[in-house]
């Protein structure tokens, strides 16, 4: 995408006669509409994550049995509960905001864990080579060979569930891809002049990898983290949907869909609202991730 937009932009800047009336076009070529929409959605999510308890019109746990299963606005409900209420009369909008918060925070922490784990192991493999590298590569292959959903279910069965364990478990999702990328990039960085130069000056491996190689490969790593993020959201919501992820009284987007499923006949809005948020969120982050990838590193696609 960027390879097409950049030359035209330069041509415009270089005194083309069409430059003045193409300002808008140039802008949209640089910032495609889909990317702008995706970024706005992500900005909205960030605001929700930061301020959910203040925005939410009700306490997300407040039960009001007189308001059970009130329909949302688009099905003829009132402004008191814009997205309706659930089987216990809890406000769906308030629950949705809190669920977004939990889901995003889990996905964010997990992605950070996966990135730390992946980069460390990738660097260790690249630094030590030999047997250590073989071991890391074997771990990568083993992780990639088994569907992660199954590994997660097994761990939850064997070790039980807590929010902390669950978040760490999600952090094991995708580390192998990041490790593979980090190792490859570190190996090729080692061949380049700057790494050799700092090594010859006598810099420690920590300094070479942390201060020189890491910043140089950061853009690619950020892209792969961005692409990991929506997949963690899908995994988390899937497990929570099955009742094996985030446990009540906390609520995540998957939980809401899971409980809403029982009311799919009488109150489909309970399940629809979080479903829409999940799809829009994964879509938005994927769009931004693809866009960043094309921007930073067209060779990756």
């Amino acid at each position: 995408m960027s390879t097409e937009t950049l030359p035209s932009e330069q041509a415009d800047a270089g005194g083309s006669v069409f430059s003045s009336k193409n300002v808008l076009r140039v802008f949209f070529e640089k910032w495609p509409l889909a990317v702008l929409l995706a970024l706005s959605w992500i900005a909205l999510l960030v605001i929700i994550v930061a301020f959910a308890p203040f925005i939410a019109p009700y306490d997300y746990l407040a039960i009001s049995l007189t308001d059970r299963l009130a329909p949302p606005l688009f099905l003829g409900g009132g402004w008191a509960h814009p997205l309706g209420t659930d089987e216990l009369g809890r406000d769906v909008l308030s629950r949705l905001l809190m669920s977004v918060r939990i889901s995003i925070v889990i996905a964010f922490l997990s992605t950070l864990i996966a990135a730390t784990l992946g980069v460390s192991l990738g660097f260790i493999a690249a630094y030590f080579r030999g047997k250590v590298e073989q071991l890391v590569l074997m771990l990568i292959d083993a992780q990639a060979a088994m569907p992660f959903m199954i590994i997660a279910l097994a761990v939850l069965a064997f070790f039980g569930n807590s929010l902390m364990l669950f978040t760490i478990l999600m952090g094991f999702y995708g580390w192998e891809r990041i490790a593979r990328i980090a190792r490859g990039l570190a190996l090729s960085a080692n061949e380049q002049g700057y790494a050799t130069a700092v090594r010859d000056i006598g810099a420690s491996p920590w300094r070479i990898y942390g201060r020189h190689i890491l910043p140089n490969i950061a853009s690619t790593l950020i892209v792969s983290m961005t692409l990991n993020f929506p997949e963690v959201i899908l995994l988390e919501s899937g497990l929570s949907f099955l009742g094996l992820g985030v446990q009540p009284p906390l609520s995540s987007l998957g939980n809401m869909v899971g409980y809403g499923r029982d009311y799919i006949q009488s109150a489909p809005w309970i399940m629809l609202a979080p479903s829409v948020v999940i799809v829009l969120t994964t879509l938005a982050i994927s769009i931004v991730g693809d866009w960043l990838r094309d921007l930073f590193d067209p060779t990756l696609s």
Partner: protein
Amino acid sequence: MFAYILNRVARAVLTLIIIVSLAFVILRMSGDPAIMILGPEAPPQAVEAFRKAWGLDQPIWVQYAKYFGAVIQGDLGNSMRDGRAALEVVWERVPLTLAITVPALLLNILIGLPAGVLAALFRNTAYDRLIMMVSVIGFTVPSFVMGLTLSLLLAVWLRLLPSGGSGTVAHAVLPVVTMGIIGAAVIARFTRSAMLEVLGQPYIRTASAKGVPWSQVITRHALANAAIPTMTIIGFMVGSLVAGAVVVESVFSWPGVGRLLVTAVANRDLAVVQVILLLIGFTMVAANLAVDLLYGWVDPRMRTKTATAGA
């Protein structure tokens, strides 16, 4: 070719041994099964009796050797909840899972492959964009949302199909379609990029430059080469058939292995979980082996390369 097959089979067997051993390690690491089943307040005599009954009072290597011997003989313990053989509990669910996953897989391949190939051949046309837009579904819509949406439309509102349960063909339609659409999207996207990669290769240019008709270039040169990466992803999907069914079976209350896994995890019925893990492990290994052998058949380079590397 024989060395290649031997190499692959040896690796498959090694992986199986690792999986079986890993299951044992995790099972023992997860804490004292006696306490877990009987509860922390159980009287010491009961715990002792339980340990003796399950062989937990012996040294760990004896337990491992016994466990390994038992696994080879197909004895995988009893369901810790209802006392029946865990293998039997799982085995009776397998046909039900196959009944929805195999048609779904066929649907994936029948839709996904042609869609991906056509999208690559008509790259950057409206047709390509349409296919890629639809295939985004496979990556952004979780299967439970897809399943529930289809269920809302076709079962709740239009009342064409049952929304859950099993017994008739109609019950299988929604689970099959849900898995079919999502898998097809994944295969289509993968096939497209594999095809694009191949179409950019010099030998394609050479073939068309020396006068081979374009349709021949596609069928004889492009498809054969794009088949290799595509086979990998299809192999992975075959291997993860049971895994893929976990969520969908739960959405539609389909009593297969996937749903059994969810209830076993929720009840912490470790013997059943372990049998399902081994079953999935075996399927993955078998699918990988099949793909490896197919590689050797499709691509002669693989045979010689791996044979020399393995020697």
